[in-house]
């Protein structure tokens, strides 16, 4: 117990990095997911086919593999192109890898959500002289959240848990700090359990917030 108190500040520093990575991943991943969803719904085959291929592939391989490719492969590419030896930072590699995974899954969620908005609404918008962009921003976007939020919420929960993987390539997150504490105190069970409980707390808090967001996003719909 004393050890846990001693290491508490260190673990909280790690938690900050974990949360920072998770939030940045979702921010980048949402934009990527929207872009991929639009590409998939495009009438142009040269745009939709690669988008489907890439997201299907990324969803079919381990997140851990994506992370290692970006981390080691990124350094390899930089070395070959720039001719100097630079390492990709673990944070950046984690951000890119997790955003790619998040974006791939989110693109499917968004695609389903866009299809749930009746086509007639967009046609009505166009008939009133809205541009395609205005239709997207003012008619489709506000309505897709209602459908997309449960799916995106699950993806957020997955992303928080996936950040633990980045500790393997050396990111100083909650998981790595727990590793260090576990090794130097020889109390691995206590520290890993503590890390698990923190992750559980994030999950529970997220569940409450997501339930509220969902309620807010569907306030325009009458409940039967």
């Amino acid at each position, binding site marked *: 117990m004393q050890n846990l108190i001693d290491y508490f500040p260190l673990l909280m520093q790690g938690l900050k990095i974990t949360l920072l990575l998770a939030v940045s991943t979702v921010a980048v991943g949402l934009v990527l997911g929207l872009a991929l969803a639009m590409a998939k719904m495009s009438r142009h085959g040269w745009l939709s086919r690669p988008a489907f291929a890439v997201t299907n592939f990324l969803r079919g391989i*381990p997140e851990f593999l994506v992370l290692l490719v970006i981390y*080691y492969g990124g350094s390899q590419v930089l070395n070959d192109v720039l001719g100097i030896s630079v390492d990709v930072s673990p944070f950046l590699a984690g951000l890119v890898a997790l955003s790619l995974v998040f974006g791939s899954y989110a693109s499917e969620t968004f695609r389903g959500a866009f299809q749930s908005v009746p086509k007639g609404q967009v046609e009505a918008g166009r008939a009133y002289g809205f541009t395609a962009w205005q239709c997207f921003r003012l008619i489709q976007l506000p309505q897709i959240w209602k459908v997309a939020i449960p799916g995106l919420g699950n993806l957020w929960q997955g992303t928080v*848990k996936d950040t633990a993987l980045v500790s393997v390539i050396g990111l100083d997150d909650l998981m790595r700090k727990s590793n260090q504490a576990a090794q130097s105190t020889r109390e*691995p069970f206590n520290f890993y*359990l503590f890390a*698990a409980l923190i992750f559980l707390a994030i999950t*529970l808090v997220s569940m409450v917030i997501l339930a509220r967001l969902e309620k807010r996003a569907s306030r325009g719909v009458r409940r039967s």
Partner: protein
Amino acid sequence: MQAALDIINAYGWDFLTGTWLTIQLVVISGILGLVIAVPVALARLSENRLVHGIATAYSLFFRGTPLLVQIFLIYFGLGQFDFVRDSVLWPFLREAYVCALITFSLNTAAYSGEILRGGILAVPRGEVEAARASGMSTFTTYRLVILPRAFSIVLPAYSNEVIILMKGTALASTITLLELMGMSQLAASATYQPILVFGIAGVIYYLLTLAISWLFRTLERRYNRYLAVAR
């Protein structure tokens, strides 16, 4: 292209043995997980508050924490306790292979338990009532009516869970197991060709994903034939 062929030439056998270990981990923990998932699902539906509470806590813990933490908790964590080290099970619990199997089984059981719970709730009430009316005991009703029906209802959702389990087995490489991911890490650092090596591993993983979804589509066609007729 030539570089890729060279790697396959030099490490082809390693990729194969790694893939074989990955398949082992998926099949064994998939089966064990399913066996554990049945009581978990039933306990989650139990009206006994203690039983319900324990099952809910179990399910929440394994679904709400990273798989990596769970692996470390079991592989590194258990050794902290003297009574574990002194027990007759220690020679097994010390093995990374056994720890990986335990973690993956418990993890997938938590997810499959939730899926199965949904399936049990989706069994039409009339079928259960008919079974009871024809004199089946509660146990027989579960064995012959509710569970088989629930399994066929959850088959599509369960195939996703098996794919997630397969992707999760990549983490076994963090506790020294040389499954597909572990083998690729070795090959990548030996050849200084991470992109090619991990690319090959990615293709193998993707083929495994395709194989799993094909397998479950076949199972669905076989076991859900009666639904196709009704439709």
